[in-house]
């Protein structure tokens, strides 16, 4: 909604927009500075893990945003988005090999364009089929396409390399700036650059007649017909363009990992796009960015700590879907009017008050899950259960009692506090409404 508001220069003052602009600039600065926060001065080198994770986050941002071009902006539920991502990756892997042996002499910096083009072409082909239908029929066609392509990638060795995938070397010695791309930090900045370009590009698209009509077809495809538009063509172009960006994301994947396997085309990645976009918030342009970062951190970070991370992800999704359908960005946007009215301070104490029981509840839950999974799985793997820095003896009753107690007490307490919080929230919004009515 906010980006829609900003697109009407004469109707709204620019102030809201400029705050947004600053947020974007801040994001960019953060992206540039982030690797240096994890710089290991003792060994004078970067944290490869962190850079990998941030690089992954970068390509996932492109991927999730391009997915949201379908889901959030055009109301299309696709289950084959990874196909374009993966295909872009495969093409770039071949292009890298071609670039180093001279048959495809384009510099590294422009490789993402090759991936994007590949994604675009494939999306034109599949989009021609899928966009004939809408809603569930569209979703099911894409489900079929996704399955077909993932299996084809396993079956046809020449292009996809079967199970082992295709590898290449990114040190192709063709760069506009004379970079070798030996270090992942160089690749990271390449990713930051292309992520920025893609984000700007996709934002630009939302502000064009096509982008607007995609929204219109999402809200009411029949009405769109009666203002002269063919929703099928709107869907088709939107689908093709989202394939373009997904392909660019895939290209960055190929450059970062120098290998592309069928996994990058398969269902789980498509599902990931859906999760990232939804968790982040589909109604706000920047929402999927938050989702992409969060999910990447969960997958790469939390999975280091616990093999039960899938349970946490599952619980997170269920709570988000149940209680926060507008996603992370939706929540943040909900605070906008309160911030403008200068009443954010009033929420501080209620926030702290729900954070405490919330924390207890989560700790109880985490402890319980870890205890249970340790008992059946972890113990025999020779691990020692360490919860919150302390080794735990699972044979004794105390940790179990503490965990269950935390779960129950935290739950009841949180219920109580959330009612209190809701009251404060309602009061503030009611106040704002009254103030608005007066003006």
């Amino acid at each position: 909604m906010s980006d829609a508001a900003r697109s009407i220069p004469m109707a709204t003052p620019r102030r809201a927009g400029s705050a947004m602009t600053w947020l974007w600039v801040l994001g960019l600065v953060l992206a540039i500075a982030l690797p240096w926060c994890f710089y290991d001065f003792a060994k004078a080198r970067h944290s490869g893990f962190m850079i990998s994770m941030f690089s992954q986050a970068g390509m996932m941002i492109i991927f999730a945003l391009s997915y949201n071009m379908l889901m959030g902006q055009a109301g299309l539920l696709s289950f084959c988005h990874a196909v374009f991502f993966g295909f872009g990756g495969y093409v770039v892997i071949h292009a890298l090999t071609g670039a180093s042996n001279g048959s495809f002499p384009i510099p590294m910096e422009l490789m993402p364009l090759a991936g994007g083009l590949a994604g675009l072409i494939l999306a034109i082909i599949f989009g021609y089929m899928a966009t004939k239908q809408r809603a569930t029929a569209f979703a099911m066609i894409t489900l079929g396409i996704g399955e077909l392509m993932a299996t084809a990638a396993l079956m046809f060795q020449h292009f996809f390399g079967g199970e082992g995938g295709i590898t290449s070397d990114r040190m192709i010695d063709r760069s506009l700036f004379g970079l070798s791309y030996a270090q992942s930090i160089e690749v990271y900045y390449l990713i930051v650059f292309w992520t920025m370009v893609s984000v700007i590009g996709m934002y630009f698209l939302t502000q064009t007649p096509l982008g607007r009509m995609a929204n219109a077809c999402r809200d009411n495809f029949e009405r769109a017909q009666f203002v002269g538009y063919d929703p099928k063509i709107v869907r088709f172009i939107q689908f093709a363009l989202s394939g373009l960006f997904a392909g660019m994301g895939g290209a960055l994947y190929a450059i970062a990992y120098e290998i592309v396997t069928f996994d990058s085309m398969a269902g789980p990645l498509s599902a990931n796009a859906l999760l990232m976009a939804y968790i982040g918030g589909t109604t706000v342009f920047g929402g999927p960015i938050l989702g992409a970062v969060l999910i990447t951190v969960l997958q790469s970070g939390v999975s280091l700590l616990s093999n039960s991370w899938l349970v946490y992800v599952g619980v997170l999704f269920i709570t988000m879907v149940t209680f926060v359908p507008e996603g992370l960005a939706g929540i943040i946007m909900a605070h906008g009017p309160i911030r403008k009215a200068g009443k954010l301070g009033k929420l501080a104490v209620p926030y702290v008050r729900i954070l405490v029981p919330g924390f207890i509840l989560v700790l109880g839950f985490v402890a319980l899950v870890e205890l249970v999974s340790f008992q059946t799985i972890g113990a025999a793997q020779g691990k020692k259960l360490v919860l919150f820095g302390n080794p735990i003896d699972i044979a004794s009753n105390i940790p179990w009692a503490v965990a269950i107690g935390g779960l129950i007490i935290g739950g009841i307490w949180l219920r109580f506090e959330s009612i209190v919080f809701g009251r404060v929230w309602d009061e503030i919004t009611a106040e704002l409404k009254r103030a608005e009515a007066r003006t």
Partner: protein
Amino acid sequence: MEIILVSLLNGLVYGMLLFMLASGLTLIFSMMGVLNFAHASIYMIGAYLAFEVSRWFGFLPALILAPILCGAIGAAIEIWGLRRVHHNGHIAELLFTFGLVFIVQRGVQMIWGMLPMPYRVPSYLDFPLFTLYGANFPAYRGFMLLISAGMLLAIWLLLKKTRVGLIIQAALTHPNMVSSLGHNVPMVFTGVFAGGCGLAGLAGVIGGNYLTTESSMADAMGPIVFVVVVFGGLGSLAGCFIASIIMGMIQTFAVVFDYTIADMFSPLFKVPEMDTLLGEILTVPMSRIGPLLPYALMILILLVRPRGLLGTRDT
């Protein structure tokens, strides 16, 4: 001839297994519009519960208890989960079931461990029923056919002969109408979801020892069930049945008729042997792409007939 008859029988058994899973999803999907990705997870829970029950009380109690438990789980999911999510739209419901898939998978691993369960066909069903062209037809397969046919009959009777059935049938095709007629739609929804999960549970009981009871069994069954439901058409149990049988037959016969695209062209001209992508595509035998045919068929039917085989409304 021999191979065709045997394959027909095999295709029928497989189709019936698919139908057991898909019938529950057809009810849920057509009526509530919920893309229930957790349907196969319920099927897995059914298998694990059946193993646990049959260990203590025997197979027959499991056959009754496990589906009831699965139905209860389904009801709980609907009442405390889906109903709250419902007003956020179908994508929210879909994601909710996604979350469930993760939780169920790890949950099952946490409770029963990683190893497959020794859940076996009971000894009184473990004998050859008859011999066809020298190959035994196991009694358990006959039992599966019996159960699924019985299930088909029971659902049909329920839908055609009872008042509840009439409401459900009406809700399958015209969900909005039913609510405006003053029926308690949330109740009907809970009932249908529980019933669908119960059917999935039953499929788990039957399929768990026919196939293998392990924590990855849900993954393999997830998408194919959707294909059957969509291919058969929303709102049509008959369509779902026919689609299941078709899918069963296709997959069976794809293995038997082991041709490649190059073979098909061979009467016209000789396809040269090529070591390229095209050559690969032309020489993939049918049996290798057999499991993909359902997806291809689904895409085709959706392109020309978006309501599916016997569907009453567009997908």
